[in-house]
């Protein structure tokens, strides 16, 4: 390194330290969000340049001269050597989604500092390492999927267990994303109208690119976005019209049932009709809005109203139950480390990589960008007045439904709030109420509306920006519901097909309908249960989702650790081994606490016991209103407990398989990894 470069890195380090210092040590007065951005960018730059390079070059032993699958199997379609900036865009668009936007918003209940520190440290040391390593491993194995790699490196039983894990995650993921949409749209005619508009628009776009101007994605997306914005503006008129508003005002239960029906219908339609055009719209809108938000934060320079640390680090918070360890880590999930990225990094990206030398830019770099999205979500949640934040994210069972009562309860928590502030913010964003809009999306939308209207348009446009943010989240969540139901259907068909082979045939309409029905029933059950849960559902479902996501990350990192040992690179085993161990400890602790914790708010079984005892005595406990609801609460607790138990068992089993794999690898003096060698032949495959 020349001295000028050294000086530059010393400057970056100093700047980052100052930024972190301001963010961490400030007490009392609001902090400029710019400091948070500066601290994050400096951390990312240093991590990418030094640790990322160390992991790529030393730990993994990247060989830029080795032919990649894109060259060995070049077919101009799936396997295409692709410019690294173009591929970065593809990879980032595939990994980014609702997760990093929602997790940090929920985590803000403990203050912005604990969450921010984990988003930075987790991404740099665990998330980016996972993405880079899995991308590298898959590239060395002709772009094989995560499941395939687990099967070939750790044995068929481990592969089967991982597949069951992925299926369970899908169910929980779809339920929790559905719940986020339901919570955002319930009783909101403006939001509901805009989201319903996306369906005819997508159908129109689908027909346009299929028959009228085939494959003209640019034209189609441009006029799709224009129609979408027209719907957004007209939504205000609909909401303000006494005649039209009732047609688009629905209860949460009705929306949940509609969403379940939508998931079923959408997943059996041909992909070009609804899924593909909507996917195009939501992808462009997603990437565009994230960029816009970054620009707006720089221009508006908002102040963080949330204190760095709140009293809720003791585990008594209303947004999610449980202590800082492990539940903060479980809640943030995707913004720091996400198991889903292991599926993407072993999907289409490794088939397009020009050289292994670019794996760091794409694997490590895209995850850093995703982590920055999580930081922006944290900023979005922290620029709102903390009292309003808690009013939006506390279930009605805790704060009631009356602004005066809610203001009193929340002021009692130490966040001074008047009923006027609640009605004013609802009026500003064009809603009747913002109370108990749990699920993160509405909170983020209020934060984004504040930031964006601060940068462009002033407070007059706040309602438009709020509903734009809701639309942007709902759009890609609905796309995920559609695509996810198809994936789940495929996995169910595959699993049930081992018993009833005829069920595997994907060209049969009966199979498609039955498979979609099963898939929708699985996530729909959890969604509906979450909607009618008086404690708000997100409370129960988000931790389960977080546990499952971190579990998948743990599985991916265990695989990476085993393969490092098989490659005889055990000197560097800590690079993936330490994050794997951390995730195992986190998921096991969280899973066991969800099962056995004595606090009914945390432990499913103790919650079931409280309600079961009351039921046996013939008493009705709030928030349930009838004995039938009481027994439903108990049943839900047992189902949730079984799921948590399944996750704990899955993690434990994978740890055992991992340890067996490591022992075998270390006992063998030669490399036993089954990868494609420099000459293009598969070696070590058994």
């Amino acid at each position: 390194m020349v001295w000028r470069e050294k000086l530059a890195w010393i400057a970056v380090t100093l700047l980052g330290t100052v930024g972190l210092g301001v963010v961490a040590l400030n007490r009392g007065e609001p902090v400029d969000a710019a400091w948070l951005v500066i601290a994050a960018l400096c951390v990312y730059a240093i991590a990418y340049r030094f640790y990322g390079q160390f992991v790529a070059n030393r730990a993994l032993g990247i060989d830029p001269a080795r032919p990649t699958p894109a060259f060995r199997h070049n077919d101009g379609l799936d396997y295409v050597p692709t410019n690294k900036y173009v591929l970065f865009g593809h990879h980032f668009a595939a990994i980014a989604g609702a997760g990093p936007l929602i997790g940090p918003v929920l985590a803000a209940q403990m203050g912005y500092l604990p969450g921010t520190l984990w988003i930075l440290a987790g991404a740099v040391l665990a998330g980016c390492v996972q993405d880079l390593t899995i991308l590298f491993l898959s590239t060395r194995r002709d772009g094989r999927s995560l499941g395939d790699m687990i099967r070939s490196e750790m044995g068929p039983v481990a592969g089967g267990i991982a597949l069951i894990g992925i299926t369970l995650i899908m169910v929980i993921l779809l339920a929790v994303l559905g719940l986020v949409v339901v919570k955002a749209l319930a009783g909101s005619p403006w939001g509901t109208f805009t989201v319903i508009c996306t369906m005819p628009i997508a159908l129109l776009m689908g027909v346009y690119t299929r028959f009228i101007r085939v494959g003209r994605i640019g034209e189609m997306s441009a006029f799709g976005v224009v129609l979408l914005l027209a719907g957004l503006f007209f939504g205000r008129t609909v909401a303000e019209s006494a005649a039209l508003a009732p047609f688009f005002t629905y209860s949460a239960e009705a929306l949940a049932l509609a969403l379940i029906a939508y998931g079923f219908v959408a997943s059996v339609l041909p992909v070009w009709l609804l899924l593909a055009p909507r996917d195009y719209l939501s992808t462009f809108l997603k990437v565009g809005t994230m960029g816009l938000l970054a620009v707006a934060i720089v221009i508006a320079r908002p102040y963080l109203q949330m204190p760095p640390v709140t009293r809720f680090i003791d585990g008594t918070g209303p947004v999610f139950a449980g202590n800082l360890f492990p539940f903060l880590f479980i809640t943030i999930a995707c913004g720091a480390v996400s198991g889903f990225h292991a599926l993407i990094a072993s999907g289409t990206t490794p088939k397009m990589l020009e050289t292994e030398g670019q794996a760091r830019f794409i694997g490590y770099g895209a995850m850093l960008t995703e982590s920055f999205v999580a930081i922006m979500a944290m900023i979005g949640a922290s620029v709102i007045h903390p009292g309003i934040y808690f009013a939006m994210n506390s279930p009605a069972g805790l704060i009631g439904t009356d602004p005066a009562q809610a203001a009193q309860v929340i002021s009692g928590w130490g966040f001074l709030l008047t009923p006027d502030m609640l009605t004013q913010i609802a009026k500003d964003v064009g809603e009747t109420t913002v109370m108990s809009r749990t699920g993160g999306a509405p909170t983020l939308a209020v934060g984004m509306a504040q930031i964006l209207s601060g940068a462009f348009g002033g407070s007059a446009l706040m309602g438009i920006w709020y509903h734009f943010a809701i639309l942007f989240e709902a759009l890609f969540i609905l796309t995920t519901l559609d695509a996810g139901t198809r994936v789940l259907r495929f996995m169910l068909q595959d699993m049930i097909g081992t018993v009833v082979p005829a069920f595997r045939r994907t060209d049969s309409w009966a199979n498609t309908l039955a498979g979609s029905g099963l898939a929708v029933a699985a996530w729909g059950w959890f969604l509906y249960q979450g909607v009618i849960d008086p404690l708000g559902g997100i409370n129960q479902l988000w931790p389960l989702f977080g546990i499952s996501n971190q579990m998948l990350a743990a599985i991916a990192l265990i695989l990476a650790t085993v393969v490092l040992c098989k490659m005889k690179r055990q000197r560097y085993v800590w690079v993936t081994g330490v994050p794997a161990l951390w995730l195992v400890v986190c998921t096991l602790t969280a899973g066991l606490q969800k099962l056995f914790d004595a606090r009914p708010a945390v432990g499913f079984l103790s919650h079931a016991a409280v309600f079961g005892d009351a039921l046996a005595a013939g008493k009705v406990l709030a928030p349930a209103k009838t004995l039938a609801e009481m027994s439903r609460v108990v049943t839900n607790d047992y189902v949730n407990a079984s799921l948590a138990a399944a996750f704990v068992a899955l993690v434990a089993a994978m740890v055992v398989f991992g340890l067996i794999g490591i022992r075998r690898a270390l006992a063998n003096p030669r490399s036993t990894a089954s990868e494609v060698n420099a000459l293009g032949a598969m070696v070590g495959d058994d």
Partner: protein
Amino acid sequence: MAPWWAMTEMGQAKNPAATSYNRPDMGPDGVSDGAPLHRRGLAQARLICDGVARTARLMVGVPDYDAYLAHQERAHPNQPAMSYAEFFRNRQQARYAFDKGRFRGCC
């Protein structure tokens, strides 16, 4: 000097097949260094637009059609290549042909 989006990594020099830029009809920055400045500026602007468009298309799963044609010509000169419409439908179907664990865009 190649523009930033067409720049190659250090290691790529060792890998002669790795042509970062998939358009055989153009040089790495689209125009020779001897050309007048305004022509080079225009060429650069065009290249940036082209790069953005290719990124946007690949984001939704449609790879570069020119690269496909170049590949067909090189590898299978005697077989007819798909038209753009066929190519688009083929790629659209492939993007949503979900198999085990292939999943995008949740977090």
